[in-house]
């Protein structure tokens, strides 16, 4: 009897069996998988499981501790919610890849060694790519291709780092690594690609809004959060992360304000929230690590909820563009309500974001990182006005976009309701979340200062937003795209293509002209009447000596050339050539 199953195995093996499950049973089956997984997870004892010797390497498939367990719990929750959300699509490919993707994320979270980690890390890339392809539009296909190329590059960085690290230390153990050698720096960068660090973030805002409706919900939960997890495990307390995270928290805000595609607005806000977590990892104290774990937990739920609500809008109206939406509160009241719950969960007291984000802010204050503290406070304002005010305003209120649609399907509403409930539950009873955190916390989020400060911050941000809207200063949404860092590699690839086109095709046509056209033509002329011209050149002085006129000369030339072309030499000529040839051979 197997005591514990690796959670990744339950998801991946279970997912591969989905196409075999018949009819209605399938819906029950795909919802049961995360539930069985959760039951297994809650019975997992802390410690190391499944040590495997593989070609002389000691691998450890599962290392369960409090850090990995809390990530696994929230991954199970969002997997269940996400599967419920995509239940009505009846798409086996999406079911299988979504669950395999969740399984790979769980594999990364429990990996006790770097090789197992790498295996599941690549699994994340492959499975998530299918979630983008599942949209089945040409722009989604192109985005999926770019996405896979960026992640392949990131994966190679990670692999190179792992190989160098193993070569230097002889160890494959996955624990705290620190930035001591080139190997660990490469691992750091490999993690950074999946974490969407500034300049490495292009794939996220490029691909997430192109993915399938349900795919985006899964994508938002797993790739970046596993990256946060591995950074927290391997590079906690690395000071450079504080600044990387601060930049991440700030720069997407400006893009989010001017972006027209609402799912892309949420993708920018996602980077901003990951920024909070990266700052926390950089601070690295127990309070900070607790903060980032709590933040990741809450963020997976409320960002999932926001993406689900806008996904439902996209499902019903066929668009997620601010310019084409508006006034949907009437036709989709529940979706609107759940979106507003998710928006409140970003920061408002009584919701999940409030009790998690204040841990990170407090950690920054404890370490007296004032600049970072101010930046994070500004980031909190920015994400609230984008995801919390702008998106619902343009989707559900504002100018009527003319869509008269039905409310979202029941399974979608249930999924959103579940996520909204969890956001509220965690906000009201934060100790349930705090009890799961890696370190014991004695933290009280509901102090007068915190609550009042946060309320003032949000209300006055809202006040400024409404005044800017009323006065017309707030930038009107326009049908346009905004260039971001993916421009560089999209243009670079075009430049490469054009460069290769010019150089290789240029060489090709040059060689074609020289060899195929000119050289063969000359060769053929040479063999046609080369010897004749040679003979003519030899006989020219004789002709001149005989004082032939131009007419005679031309006639005799014509005669010689014709003789050569037809090959009807006189016997005497043949004899002379044969003798000459034999003499030549004799001397050679």
């Amino acid at each position, binding site marked *: 009897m197997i005591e514990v199953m690796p959670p990744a195995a339950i998801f991946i093996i279970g997912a591969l069996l989905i196409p075999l499950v018949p009819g209605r049973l399938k819906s029950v089956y795909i919802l049961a998988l995360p539930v069985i997984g959760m039951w297994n997870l809650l019975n997992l004892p802390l410690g190391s499981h499944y040590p495997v010797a593989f070609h002389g390497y000691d691998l450890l498939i599962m290392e369960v501790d409090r850090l990995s367990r809390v990530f696994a719990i929230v991954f199970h929750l969002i997997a269940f919610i996400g599967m419920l959300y995509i239940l009505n699509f009846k798409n086996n490919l999406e079911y299988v890849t979504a669950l395999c993707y969740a399984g790979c994320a769980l594999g990364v979270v429990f990996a006790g060694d770097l090789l197992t980690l790498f295996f599941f890390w690549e699994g994340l890339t492959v499975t998530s790519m299918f979630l983008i392809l599942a949209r089945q539009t040409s722009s989604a296909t192109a985005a999926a291709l770019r996405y896979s190329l960026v992640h392949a590059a990131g994966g190679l960085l990670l692999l190179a780092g792992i190989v160098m690290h193993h070569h230097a230390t002889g160890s494959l153990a996955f624990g705290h690594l620190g930035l001591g050698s080139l190997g660990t720096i490469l691992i750091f960068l490999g993690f950074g690609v999946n974490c969407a660090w500034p300049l490495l973030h292009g794939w996220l805002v490029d691909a997430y809004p192109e993915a399938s409706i349900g795919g985006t919900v899964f994508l938002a939960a797993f790739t970046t959060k596993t990256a946060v997890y591995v950074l927290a495990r391997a590079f906690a307390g690395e000071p450079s992360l504080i600044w990387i995270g601060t930049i991440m928290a700030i720069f997407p805000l400006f893009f989010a304000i001017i972006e027209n595609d609402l799912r892309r607005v949420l993708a920018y806000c996602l980077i901003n929230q990951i920024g909070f977590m990266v700052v926390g990892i950089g601070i690295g104290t127990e309070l900070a690590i607790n903060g980032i774990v709590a933040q990741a937990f809450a963020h997976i739920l409320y960002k999932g909820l926001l993406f689900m609500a806008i996904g439902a809008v996209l499902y019903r109206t066929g668009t997620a563009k601010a310019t084409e939406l508006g006034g949907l509160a009437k036709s989709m009241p529940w979706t609107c309500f759940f979106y507003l719950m998710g928006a409140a969960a970003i920061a408002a007291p009584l919701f999940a974001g409030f009790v998690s984000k204040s841990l990170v802010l407090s950690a920054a204050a404890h370490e007296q990182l004032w600049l970072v503290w101010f930046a994070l406070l500004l980031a909190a304002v920015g994400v609230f006005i984008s995801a919390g005010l702008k998106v619902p305003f343009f989707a559900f209120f504002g100018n009527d976009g003319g869509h008269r649609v039905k409310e979202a399907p029941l399974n979608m509403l249930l999924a959103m309701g579940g996520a909204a409930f969890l956001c509220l539950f965690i906000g009201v009873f934060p100790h349930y979340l705090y009890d799961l955190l890696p370190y014991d916390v004695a933290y009280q989020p509901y102090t007068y200062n915190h609550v009042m400060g946060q309320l003032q911050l949000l209300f006055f941000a809202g006040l400024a937003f409404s005044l800017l809207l009323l006065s017309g*200063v707030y930038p009107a949404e326009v049908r346009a795209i905004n260039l971001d860092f993916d421009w560089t590699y999209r243009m670079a690839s075009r430049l490469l293509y054009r460069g290769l086109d010019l150089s290789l095709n240029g060489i090709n046509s040059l060689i074609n002209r020289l060899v195929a056209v000119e050289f063969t033509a000359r060769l053929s002329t040479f063999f046609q009447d080369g010897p004749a011209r040679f003979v003519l050149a030899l006989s020219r002085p004789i002709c001149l000596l005989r004082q032939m006129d131009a007419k005679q000369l031309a006639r005799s030339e014509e005669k010689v050339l014709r003789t050569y072309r037809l090959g009807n030499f006189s016997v005497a000529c043949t004899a002379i050539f044969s003798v000459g040839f034999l003499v030549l051979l004799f001397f050679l």
Partner: protein
Amino acid sequence: MPTDDQKERRQAGQQGKALLILFFACCLALFAIDFVVKRPAHMVWEEWPGFYALFGFVGCVLIVLMARYLLRPLVKREEDYYD
């Protein structure tokens, strides 16, 4: 004779206006309370009355203005730019 749609719209407009007034009143109350109740805080600036309110307001305005006047002129392109 106004149609049902127009009536509805007018009604929604009135509701919106009422909500907006309520919202402004809440803002005012939240701002005023800082001058009545002193906050026990870690940092000096947290004790200044209206610090968070001002930060939220100015922060929002700054982000919107910078996005509109600095970033948008730099990065805005036609929708078919990449095609």
